[in-house]
């Protein structure tokens, strides 16, 4: 069977506006998503972007206002939540407080009237998978947050769903535990091979765990891609800003030379990537650069290559040093330098004159206006 | 929803409607019961003593409600702010008397207030007047004291609930802005707990307007209340139509405070729904 695990075709969800469509509050705006079998797919975006609503539409707790939902090639729009081949790990775990751990985990099996012996075996398997052996008889109130989370996971996985839905499951955990669980979840998914649909607002989490990410905002999907694609080639200003850190520079196009775009900032010419090649000389374009791809050097030794500026701020981050550099035309550029031995760029001070240099492939011109659908 | 609605319509709405219709009957039984008349209303509206007794009973009810609230408030306050982890035990302690037999608690006061009772015995042993029996028992004061006693445990609850709902950070804010404890109480605590206080007040006031058991036991001829007259119409005089009119008058009388109150606070919020 080659059907994708999940397909959303033109799915929208709005509220209100029965009299007048203009009054509608749109939570999800005609999105198209295809999840491949066995992949770890993440919906990433700030709160209110529609990611949770989308998840709940797949689960069956919300009906789409329009569009088609398919799971493993079968249409699901009219199938009630309890009959869909999906299971959900809730943000607050939603463990049944009146049942023991083993009864919680086996709930879905009991509902499907799986015989007791078989049920016991499957539950034991699931609990071993999440490393909760020995906790069978406990009640949820007797478990820590991390343990409750594992129970929720086991309870969903034991049913071997076609897709596992996870609604910000790590949000309630402290930082260290969260980071450990991120890796665990990733390994678990690889081990079990089930398609994961994961929702989070934490971009680092998304980058760590996902095979592919869909960045959402205001009900729209802005870009779909692998972590590397999203990070290195953000589709627009929002994605570039939301994922990691970016430096944005307003520049004027001069032309194309040696397969690179040439732009002008003040009096200096710098190189950038040609991105679709529809820019005309004289046009304004915003360049997006990752701070770690901008190198900073003291102006004294560098000669006259690079963008001239002076250091406004120095922030010591332990692993890196972050410099905020003020340019002649008033713009500011953030650059990061790794805090390694022998790097003379780590000892710059506020007020120092510096030169910024980058590889043209690392400067991405972003289209104007900033809101635009992705090229995936 | 159907079964509860059905029950309430059949056994709450219908009885009241029937009672209202009955106010137009000329008599309780037989021939007279079939005749339509407005005499009962006329009789009630012309009966000055009945009306003034209704007003006085409402007055007594208001005094009882007010005293109950005033006496219960410090308890609720103490439980909410000073009792700490023991508050649930102490709250239960206060509520227990509420659930013991009403009749017998009234009887207890009859004993306390009567001649030979606790109060008189104590006063006599202190050398004060020998037979003050009639001073405390069989009058309106006895009714008020007894009723307040029975109501205090019930009133503590809504006031306590209202106090508990106040955000603790509001007190810190008041202190931060310079208010001293008594000031903070007047400007912050009291106003915010007012819905619970008013709820408690009405919770006592409304049933007490129709109270007749306590007056019958400890009120004597001077402590009689409107409810006693209504009971009399039904069980002794057998003038049910008249009794219905009097009952309706009382019902309308208590509806007024309820309607007034529901303008200020949504009743569903009070119930937590």
């Amino acid at each position, binding site marked *: 069977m080659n059907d994708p695990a999940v397909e959303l075709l033109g799915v929208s969800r709005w509220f209100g506006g029965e009299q007048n469509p203009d009054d509608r509050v749109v939570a999800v705006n005609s999105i198209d998503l295809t999840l491949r079998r066995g992949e770890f797919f993440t919906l990433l975006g700030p709160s209110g972007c529609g990611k949770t609503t989308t998840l709940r539409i797949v689960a*069956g*707790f919300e009906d789409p206002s329009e569009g088609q939902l398919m799971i493993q090639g079968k249409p699901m729009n009219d199938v009630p*939540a*309890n009959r869909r081949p999906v*299971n959900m790990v809730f943000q*607050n775990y939603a463990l*049944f*407080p*009146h049942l023991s751990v083993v009864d919680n985990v086996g*709930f*879905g099996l009991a*509902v499907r009237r799986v015989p007791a012996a078989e049920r016991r075996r499957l539950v034991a398997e699931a609990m071993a998978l999440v490393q909760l052996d020995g906790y069978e008889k406990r009640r949820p*109130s007797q478990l820590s947050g991390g343990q409750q989370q594992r129970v929720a996971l086991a309870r969903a996985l034991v049913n071997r769903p076609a897709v596992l839905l996870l609604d910000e499951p790590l949000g309630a955990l402290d930082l260290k535990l969260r980071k450990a669980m991120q890796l665990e979840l990733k390994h678990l998914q690889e081990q079990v091979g089930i398609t994961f649909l994961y929702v989070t607002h934490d971009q680092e989490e998304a980058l760590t765990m996902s095979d592919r990410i869909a960045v959402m905002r205001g009900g729209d999907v802005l870009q779909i891609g692998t972590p590397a694609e999203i990070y290195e080639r953000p589709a627009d200003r929002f994605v570039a800003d939301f994922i990691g850190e970016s430096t944005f520079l307003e520049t004027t196009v001069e032309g194309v030379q040696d397969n690179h775009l040439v732009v002008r900032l003040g009096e200096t010419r710098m190189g950038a990537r040609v991105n679709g090649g529809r820019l005309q000389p004289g046009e304004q374009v915003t360049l997006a650069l990752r701070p770690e791809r901008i190198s900073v050097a003291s102006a004294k030794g560098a000669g006259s290559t690079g963008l001239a500026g002076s250091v406004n701020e120095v922030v010591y981050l332990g692993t890196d040093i972050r410099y905020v550099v003020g340019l002649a035309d008033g713009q500011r550029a953030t650059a990061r330098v790794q805090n390694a031995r022998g790097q003379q760029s780590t000892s710059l001070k506020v007020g120092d004159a510096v030169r910024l240099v980058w590889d043209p492939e690392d400067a991405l011109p972003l289209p104007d206006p900033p809101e635009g659908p992705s090229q995936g | *929803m159907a*079964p*509860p609605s059905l*029950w*309430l319509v059949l*056994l*709450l709405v*219908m009885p009241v409607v*029937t*009672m209202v219709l009955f106010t137009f009957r000329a008599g309780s039984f037989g021939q007279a*019961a079939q005749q339509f008349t407005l005499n009962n209303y006329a009789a009630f509206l012309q009966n000055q003593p009945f009306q003034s007794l209704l007003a006085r009973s409402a007055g007594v009810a208001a005094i009882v409600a007010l005293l109950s609230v005033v006496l219960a408030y*410090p308890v609720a306050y*103490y*439980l909410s702010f*000073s009792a700490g982890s023991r508050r649930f035990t102490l709250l*239960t302690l*206060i509520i227990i*008397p509420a659930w*013991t*037999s009403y*009749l*017998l*608690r009234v*009887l*207890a*006061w009859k*004993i306390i207030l*009567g001649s030979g009772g*606790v109060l008189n015995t104590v006063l006599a042993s202190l050398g004060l007047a020998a037979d003050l029996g009639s001073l405390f028992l069989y009058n309106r004061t006895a009714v008020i004291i007894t009723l307040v*006693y029975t109501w205090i445990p019930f009133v503590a609850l809504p006031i*306590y609930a209202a106090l*508990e709902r106040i955000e603790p950070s509001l007190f810190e804010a008041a202190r931060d802005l310079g208010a001293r404890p008594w000031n903070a109480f007047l400007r912050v605590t009291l106003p915010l707990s007012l819905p619970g206080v008013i709820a408690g007040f009405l*919770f006592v006031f409304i*049933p007490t307007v*129709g*109270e*007749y058991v306590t007056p019958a*036991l400890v009120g004597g001829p001077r402590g009689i209340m409107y*409810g006693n007259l209504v009971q009399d119409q*039904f069980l002794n005089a057998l003038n049910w139509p008249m*009794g*219905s009119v009097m*009952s309706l008058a009382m*019902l309308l009388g208590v509806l007024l405070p309820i309607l007034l109150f529901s303008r200020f606070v949504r009743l569903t919020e009070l*119930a*937590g*729904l």
Partner: protein
Amino acid sequence: MLRRVPWGGLYFLVLTAFLYAPILLLIVFSFNDSILLTFPLRGFTLRWYQALFEADALLGSVVNSLMVGVASSLVATVLGTMAAIGVVRFRFPGRDAFLALAGVPLVIPAIVLGVALLILFRQLVDVQLSLWTIGLGHVVINIPIAMLIVASRLIGFEDNLEEAAMDLGAGFWETQWRVTLPMSLPALLAAFLTCFTTSFDEYAMSVFLAGTDPTLPIYLYSQLRFPRRLPHVVTLTAVLMTLSIGVLFVAEWLRRSGERTSTAPEVTA
């Protein structure tokens, strides 16, 4: 100096003493070797307690009250639970009107309800007054009590739990059976016990609806006119009060233990 005195605690103590004193007084009198309920006390005796067992009429009324109490509380709890589920889980047209109607018995003077039901029973449908008519009236006053107790439990319930059950394959009724009802059981029991206590003690309305068989409060009231009977009455108080305190502890403990098994924030009393 004024601030050192724990005024709050002191007032609490005084008020509690004030609340319990009359009750304790009655208990003292139940051991008093005298027919008269006056001071001075005569001597310790248990004969009133002995007499209790021979007081057939009294015991008969206790049985009547038990029957009426259990039956009417069961009905009221079932109806109140249905009302609570309907009101908390669904938004139906007329919800506010229903809530207002359901709350009426709580705020209407008992005498008005008693009188109105009397007219309904005797004039409209010509039903003989009996323990049944008393029971029907008790259900009416207890529906709001049961509804409020169960509703406050349902609200403190994370509704995620029902979604989780559905996600795992359970339909609506199976979810109620496997999740909602088991979790609400303590509240249901607490509602039942509270209704029972209210019914057992009800006099003001019941006296209008009573036939030849009295409930306990009705019997008690009729005995208050006979001084010779008063010690029996007082003794019965002592027994009943101890029992209802016990019942109440159980109800509260049940309600509280129900809330402790929920992971939702606690709903205040």
